[in-house]
């Protein structure tokens, strides 16, 4: 028995290469937490949510459990306000936007074409604001969690299409998102 196993693992025709699967997706993220804006800048045109993109790299689609990494870009919020007050400095127009780049580890369970994902990691939050005709770009890292569910639809040649529903929590920012996305799974890259 021992020699049989040895023979199999060494056989170049039977040993499976390490495969990496890459998925790319795009969707819309709706922020379900209230906007956390100051009373000074709370009265403008505020957009809470927007486009979300995702790139997920993970192990075999054919295994029950795989791990991987995911990243992407998410539009979080935007504010346009005229004549906002800034105590002690008079009024100013404000243009500000907030977006995030997730850098997360993901664990995936999949069976019967159903995928369940749990991710934990960080969002690199990037704020760009203009007040008093001066712009500031600033960023911070914030811990985040994601739970997601999707359904694999094979579309031939090892491609799959996955409608995915995602819940994301960005911890210190105190924001939660519900995202509906469509993901395209590419054929595996063999290493």
């Amino acid at each position, binding site marked *: 028995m021992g020699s049989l196993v040895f023979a199999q693992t060494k056989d170049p025709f039977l040993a499976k290469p390490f495969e990496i699967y890459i998925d790319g997706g795009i969707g819309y993220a709706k922020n379900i937490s209230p906007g956390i804006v100051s009373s000074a*800048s709370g009265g403008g045109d505020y957009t809470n949510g927007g486009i979300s993109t995702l790139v997920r790299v993970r192990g075999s689609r054919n295994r029950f459990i795989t791990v991987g990494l995911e990243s992407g870009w998410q539009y979080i919020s935007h504010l346009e306000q005229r004549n906002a007050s800034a105590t002690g400095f008079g009024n*100013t127009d404000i243009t500000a936007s907030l977006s995030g780049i997730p850098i997360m580890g993901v664990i995936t369970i999949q069976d019967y074409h159903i995928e369940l994902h749990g991710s934990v990691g960080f969002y690199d939050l990037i*704020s760009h604001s203009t007040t008093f005709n001066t712009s500031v770009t600033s*960023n911070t890292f914030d811990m985040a969690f994601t739970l997601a569910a999707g359904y694999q639809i094979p579309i031939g040649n090892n491609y799959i299409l996955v409608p995915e529903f995602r819940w994301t929590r960005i911890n210190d920012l105190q924001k939660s998102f519900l995202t509906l996305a469509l993901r395209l799974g590419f054929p595996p890259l063999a290493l």
Partner: protein
Amino acid sequence: MKVLIIIVLCMTFCSCVDNNLPLPIPEWSENVDKLKNAVPIPEVLLHKLEGVYRVEQGKGLFGDQVVLRQFAHKITLACQTGTYFVFESGFVDSLAIFQGYWRFDLGTQTGLAELKVKKDFNAQTGDTSLVLSGSYYGNKGINGTPFELKFIRKFKDTSNTFLILDHHGGRNEYGLPYSENSLGIIPIAEEIGANGIELDVRLTKDNVPILFHDDNLSTNLVNGEFAIGPVNNYTLAQLRALCTLKDGSPIPTLQEAFDVILSKTSYQSLWLDIKTPETVSYVLPLQIAFLKQAKLSGRAIECWVGLTSDEHITNYLADSLHTQAPSICELDPPDVERAGSVAWGPRWTEGSLTNEAIQIRTEGKRVIYWTLDKAEFIVPFINHGNLDGILTDHPALVSYNYYSRN
């Protein structure tokens, strides 16, 4: 799948709940406000009520005894349990009436309270006939629970020189309706038993010293999701446009805090915790001007710039103004000497450091431990005796444990 849906729904619900709701300080409504037409009680008379009282009735909220202290036209009861009471005062007919609120300092319970005593009170050691009786209520002032306090003795230390410094200008773990390091919370610490405060100071991009604890802005401390990242990425004007503190007030400058301290409090001491070394040289001129202004207005107040690293000390000594700007050094005793600091601020977790504390005090410098928050640790430090004050998140608890000593 069902499990996943339930988990997502639960987490979504939890993420939408704001668990940092402010807990307002309750106020008596006008129709039951007995102090509306009361005659103010002179401070010297109120001072005669100070002392340790035994709880004869209503021990649940108080514990076995309380410490009663006066400041301005108010009195504060500091309890063994961590509860404190703050009362306004006035004479109504033959009675001294006190109305105010109580709050559990280690939780979120609060309510109204009232107290009365005969007009000719005078708490003297040996005289145990003085009894204060009253009731405490929930927020609405109904279904009162009676309590009775019997005078036992005056304080062992009546000098009021032991420093009880409230952390961050006033700590707000349990939902006070003011943010830490805000202008609104500064006068509150005095009600709770502090005779000084510690403020956190750092610089904006345009080098204005402001009160802010963390290196980074975050929605834990400010309303304003577009203000993120290092505080010193933003000018003061940009900060004021993009965010407020959680209580809705603007992030205050150190100068604004100085103005409030002089106009609205009677604090004896002020510890400026300088968060970055480069802040030191921007604070010294303001500190010196503040001390001069205090002196002109007849206020005896100490103000120390906090030195927390070698770089702080280097910047401090390199500034020619340092000779006029008293400092408190948090490093080792030799560093206290090197910086010429007037006070030493050791971290309590390093132990009592008795020999070092005695040595520092024999040189005429103060020793103030930080940050002591639990009675089990506060009491041994007070008992070892080689200290001039405590920096704390719970001034009422320190006040009780210091002044209830027999």
